[in-house]
């Protein structure tokens, strides 16, 4: 038995969900729900247990970076890509979030999907997703990461389109996959560029500081490899993590069942982009232009999505835009160099966003499938557990002090403020986004749980969800509350445990405040105060508009009609894309490629060859005239040809008469 058994067999962590997926997928069709549950939950739960054990071993080994190649996958010429898995502090955070939150959502799903058809298929896909996501976070080189990257895209497609008989769901699945693909194209180009310049895609070799001396000069500079590769990788991250301009798939992805929205589109898959950027931080820190782009895109997306979320009526769509916005925050953090703050926010976001989605699912389940908030209301007393947990999550996301979101968002805003390049602008927009976030989240709470019911109480029987669904809600609520306390001591000028934990990963590349710097600490407290005030302002406005004076909202909407409709229609971005991108592509495909190249060109060439041969044959046919005399003539012609050849054959000595000696 090796010293660290799980680490030696690290592949067991992703393998268990894969087995669960295969078993459920192949055999689950005839099984009752109980057995499918058992397979799915045990595989994910065991994976979580193994992850815990792996983390324990990691700590026991003195937090030494663990990296092992389990087998050589590709070895072609100079290119080697192995099935390498690694475990470092960053992986610890990611793998625990993925397996932990993933397991909780699995439990929830057993309750939520209990009456749905295709039950086994759902869990098969869900486990498949877990497998790919774990491959993604455990990978030790870009190639294996990309395998996981593509795989989660596939699982997302399968799960969004789970109700495939519904056209909107099928379309949403396709849209997600295609938009992701566009990002993946950038990611692949980035990988190619990295390989071409550095001849390796292995994280250890690539990020090794000693290697820095050997990096070619062309890699630096504004158009150097670092910048271009980082921008390309970020393009992939935009696709996967739904940033501008590739965010359009995430709201549509709400067509999938709510557990899917929680797991994939809140807690894990969409964070893959952030993970990649953080993992590649060494590359990014050498490309300041790229970092600036990341920060700007992140900030803009955060603000943009928040504005759309203000007026949406579907409860899941509000949460979807909120996810886009929060992801923008994470990228903003990465862009200004606060990578551990970004990961911290990733972790807390996983907790409270998953909780928000699951609670929303609970609400939807409670009132029998309704998702429009305008038809909800007054549910607070009727489904108390859901209400309380969702409220706690809202505190977390808006940054109410001591809830999880407060610490992470604060760290990001602080880092943005301190950034050298345009920090003030970034900070202002970040703050505005926080204000908007608070507003629309509390709007959601008040519309859903507050005031009086806006639905027919006789038709809809409001009932609390079963404990299979409520249990995970409670656990996540607890995590949302205490999850940020790892950074709590920093508030009192103690160590920031989380940032310190991730310290070895980021080396000296973080723009972290120096511990013990009094002035900086005061700044932090001031900024924190400002942030909390904006959150409370948002709460106040929402309270006033939606609880005190409900009618005012309609008046406001009417008075700002153009702005309101623009926001309601999501800035018409989808329509813009359809007109500018989709239509021309379809035109090219139909007219140019199909009719032009395929029918006229290729078919024409192939048929043309056939027809040419037919024509030639038709012509040659006439030599077989059946007329003996013409045959005779052909004989003579043949003879003449041979004589002519002999006559004109170059070379010494005509073989005819000249050879007479």
């Amino acid at each position, binding site marked *: 038995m090796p010293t660290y058994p799980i680490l030696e067999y690290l592949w067991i962590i992703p393998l268990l969900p894969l087995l669960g997926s295969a078993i459920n997928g192949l055999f689950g069709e005839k099984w009752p729900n109980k057995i499918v549950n058992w397979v799915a939950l045990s595989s994910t739960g065991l994976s979580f247990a193994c992850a815990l054990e792996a983390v324990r071993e990691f700590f026991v080994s003195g937090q030494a970076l663990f990296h092992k190649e389990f087998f050589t996958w590709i070895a072609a010429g100079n290119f080697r890509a192995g099935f390498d898995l690694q475990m470092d502090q960053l992986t610890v955070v990611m793998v625990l979030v993925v397996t932990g939150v993933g397991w909780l959502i699995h439990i929830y799903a057993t309750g939520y999907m209990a009456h749905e058809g295709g039950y086994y298929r759902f869990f098969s896909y869900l486990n498949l997703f877990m497998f790919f996501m774990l491959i993604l976070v455990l990978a030790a080189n870009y190639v294996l990461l990309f395998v996981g990257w593509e795989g989660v895209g596939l699982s997302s497609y399968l799960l969004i389109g789970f109700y495939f008989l519904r056209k909107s769901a099928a379309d949403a699945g396709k849209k997600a996959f295609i938009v992701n693909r566009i990002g993946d194209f950038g990611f692949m180009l980035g990988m190619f560029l990295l390989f071409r310049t550095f001849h390796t895609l292995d994280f250890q070799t690539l990020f090794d500081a000693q290697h820095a001396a050997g990096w070619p000069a062309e890699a630096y500079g504004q158009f150097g490899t670092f910048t271009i590769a980082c921008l390309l990788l970020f393009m992939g991250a935009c696709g996967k993590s739904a940033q501008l301009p590739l965010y359009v798939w995430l709201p549509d992805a709400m067509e999938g069942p709510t557990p899917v929205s929680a797991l994939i589109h809140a807690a894990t898959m969409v964070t893959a982009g952030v993970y990649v950027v953080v993992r590649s931080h060494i590359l990014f820190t050498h490309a300041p232009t790229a970092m600036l782009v990341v920060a700007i895109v992140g900030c803009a997306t955060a603000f943009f999505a928040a504005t759309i979320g203000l007026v949406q009526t579907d409860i899941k769509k509000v949460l979807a835009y909120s996810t886009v916005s929060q992801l923008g925050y994470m990228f903003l953090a990465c862009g200004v160099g606060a990578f551990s703050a970004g990961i911290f926010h990733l972790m807390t976001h996983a907790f409270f966003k998953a909780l928000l989605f699951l609670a929303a699912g609970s609400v939807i389940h409670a009132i029998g499938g309704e998702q429009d908030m305008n038809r909800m209301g007054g549910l607070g007393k009727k489904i108390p557990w859901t209400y309380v947990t969702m409220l706690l999550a809202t505190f977390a996301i808006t940054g109410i002090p001591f809830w999880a979101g407060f610490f992470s968002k604060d760290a990001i805003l602080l880092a943005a403020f301190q950034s050298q390049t345009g920090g003030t602008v970034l900070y202002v927009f970040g703050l505005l986004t926080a204000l908007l976030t608070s507003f629309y989240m509390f709007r959601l709470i008040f519309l859903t749980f507050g005031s009086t019911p806006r639905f027919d109480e006789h038709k809809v029987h409001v009932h609390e969800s079963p404990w299979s669904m409520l249990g995970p809600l409670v656990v996540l609520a607890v995590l949302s509350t205490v999850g940020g306390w790892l950074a709590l001591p920093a508030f009192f000028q103690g160590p920031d445990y989380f940032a310190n934990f991730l310290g070895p990963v980021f080396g000296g590349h973080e723009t972290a405040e120096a511990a013990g710097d009094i002035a900086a600490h005061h700044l932090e407290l001031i900024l924190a105060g400002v942030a909390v005030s904006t959150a409370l302002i948002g709460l106040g406005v929402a309270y006033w508009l939606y609880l005190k004076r409900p009618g005012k909202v309609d008046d406001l909407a009417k008075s700002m009609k153009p702005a309101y409709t623009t926001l309601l229609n999501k800035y018409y971005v989808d329509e813009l894309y359809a007109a500018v991108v989709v239509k021309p592509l379809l035109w090219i495909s139909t007219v140019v490629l199909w009719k032009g190249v395929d029918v006229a060109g290729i078919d024409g060439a192939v048929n043309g060859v056939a027809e040419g041969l037919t024509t030639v044959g038709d012509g040659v*046919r006439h030599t*077989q*005239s*059946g*007329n*003996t*005399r013409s045959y*005779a*003539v052909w004989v*003579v012609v043949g003879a003449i040809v041979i004589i002519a050849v002999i006559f004109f054959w170059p070379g010494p000595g005509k073989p005819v*008469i000249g050879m*007479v*000696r």
Partner: protein
Amino acid sequence: MVPTNYYVVLSAVLFGLGVFAFIFKRNIIVIFMSIELMLNAVNLAFVAFSQALGKLDGQVFVLFVIVVAAAEAAVGLGIIILIARNRQSLNVERVDLLKL
């Protein structure tokens, strides 16, 4: 002595005349005879060269040509008889069953 070229020219002329008859005559038997004419022309050339070179190989070959011509004539005329029986005509243009 008669130069060999003269014999060869004569042979060529006879051969050309034989080809002419081969193409332009319509009677099968005459066409067959033109073949014989061509063979004779070739024989002449062979003998001429045999004399020029002082070897007898040419004449031996001529013998073989004559033998083969004889055999060919026998069989060919047999075929002509059959054609005449079947098509009731000796016109080569009547032998056109393969015409499309």
